[in-house]
């Protein structure tokens, strides 16, 4: 068992916090790249999005859908990671004196 002070100063807790923010920031950067990549393509390279991939369907359509699906996938990745992370959270929580 640890006092709150000991827990706050423990290596384990610090690692837990820094790991949480590392995962968040990495996923956030992925989200920015995904969304702004799409927006900047629209701004600077319209012909790229206008090229046909089927008889009439343009590349822009699946890419737009891709941004939406990609956002959801990033959210799902976070949840899967966080479920594992919860085990460590619960372990540390139990170590703190009530």
């Amino acid at each position, binding site marked *: 068992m640890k006092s709150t002070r000991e827990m706050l100063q423990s290596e384990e807790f610090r690692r837990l916090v820094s790991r949480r923010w590392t995962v968040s920031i990495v*996923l956030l950067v992925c989200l920015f790249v995904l969304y702004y990549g799409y*927006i900047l393509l629209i701004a600077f390279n319209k012909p790229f999005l206008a090229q046909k991939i*089927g008889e009439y369907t343009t590349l822009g*359509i699946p890419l737009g*859908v891709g941004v939406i699906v990609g956002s*959801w996938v990033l959210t799902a990745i976070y*949840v899967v990671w966080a479920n594992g992370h919860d085990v460590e959270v619960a372990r540390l929580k139990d170590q703190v004196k009530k």
Partner: protein
Amino acid sequence: MSPAPAVQTAVQTSLGHPTASAIGFFFVIVVLTLAITYWAAKKTRSAKQFYAADRSVSAFQNGLALSGDYMSAASFLGIAGLVSLKGYDGMIYATGWLVGWPALMFLIAEPLRNLGKYTFADVVAFRLKQTPVRIASAIGGVLTVLLYTIAQMVGAGNLIKLMFGIKYELAELIVGAVMLAYVLFGGMIATTWVQIVKAILLLCGVTFLTILVLSKFGFNPANLYAAVAQDAKLGQAALEPGGQVSNPVDAVSLGLALMLGLLGLPHILMRFYTVPDAKAARKSVLYATGFIGYFYIIIPIVGFGAAVLVGRDVISGIDKGGNMAAPLLAELLGGTPFLGFIAAVAFATILAVVAGLTLAGASALSHDIYLNVVKHGTATEAEQVKVAKISTVVFGICAVLLGFLFKTQNVAFMVGLAFAVACSANFPALLLSIVWKRFTTAGAVASILTGAILAILLIIISPTVWVDVLKHEKAIFPYKNPAIFSMTASFLVAFLVSLMSKDDRAQAMFEDEKLRTYLGIGAE
């Protein structure tokens, strides 16, 4: 104004006349939601029940309720209309509206749930001085909610007038009265369930409409796009990006507002207190992102379907903004009963969203201002609930009056403004209070006020107001969306003022706050 279509068209529509099926469906939905309210009223005694549904909402239910709060009639009718009239450019909107959800998840969903009680101001004020921070947060919060509410009320009045042919003012009063009943008697429990019912109806209705559209094209979207490309009025250009994103600074700024504004919308943030713990909060975001993403993926199919099957002239003949594209398509494919159903669902959508906004606005007034500033945190349960209900009525009346006042305002602009204020005033203070040890009371207040004032000021001198509304020759501020400047300024002010001021208590409490933020120790 006569609700009859302005142009002669081949399509006969009963839109604009209250048909038996529309009234019937509307009646069923209102009775159902009032029954929910009656059931919820018996469970709404304490402040925790009124504001946070007793923290008994499951992750799945909250996911539906969150998506219900976000999928407003404006996004349903608006994006379908935009795609039908502008083609691919309408789709760009749909993507922008979703990207805030992952950001909400990564940055604040769990800390928000662990640190707060009923409002996001609980988190900002956690270790800072209550009175100034609560007042500033309430200003930011109420401002955001009011702007959002005006957009919903104005949209509601106009849509109901178009669909049922009843007067704008009467429509406002009906929305005001019914949603007040939900919030006043059923609190968050009723508001949540009304939101869930509406989200399910909306998702089912739009899914059915999409299936009907695809059935006309052999269940292959490629055939739909082929029909769009071959249509004389639409052509291949409708499937390509056009002039939507012409100014990259504006596009980046709008993206920031949409993405980070979500993290400052009080009615969305409040929903995280209705679930039992941080894990449920996290799961509910995943569900919400799934529902909303699905909705935004199928809405363009409805829009393109309307453009091909109903035709652009008919759609813009009835409403210039294209808002009636989806209802017209529903009537064409499913007859008057389906139009009635879609119209009733759009009405229910408005009711539910306004109810959620009213509850958020009322909680800022009663919980943040009355309880924590006037009463310094000491009021009995009965007193808290009473004040919460009075605030609800006050906010509800304001919503209806503002609806009258802003009758002719552009709805999309009001929503844009709400998001700009949310990401500039509320979001920086919320994030910094969670992650930055040196953040001080003075820094928080300065940041919130700077963000709010600058966002509004820049919009007034932007082309949207300065040129379009005030009819000046040239805008002082060249961009339509101020987020990139006002949010940056809000963060800068927060840093500078915090570094110049001292808040020893806040610094000392930061370490203890961490246990609650990251381990959930002591969370409500």
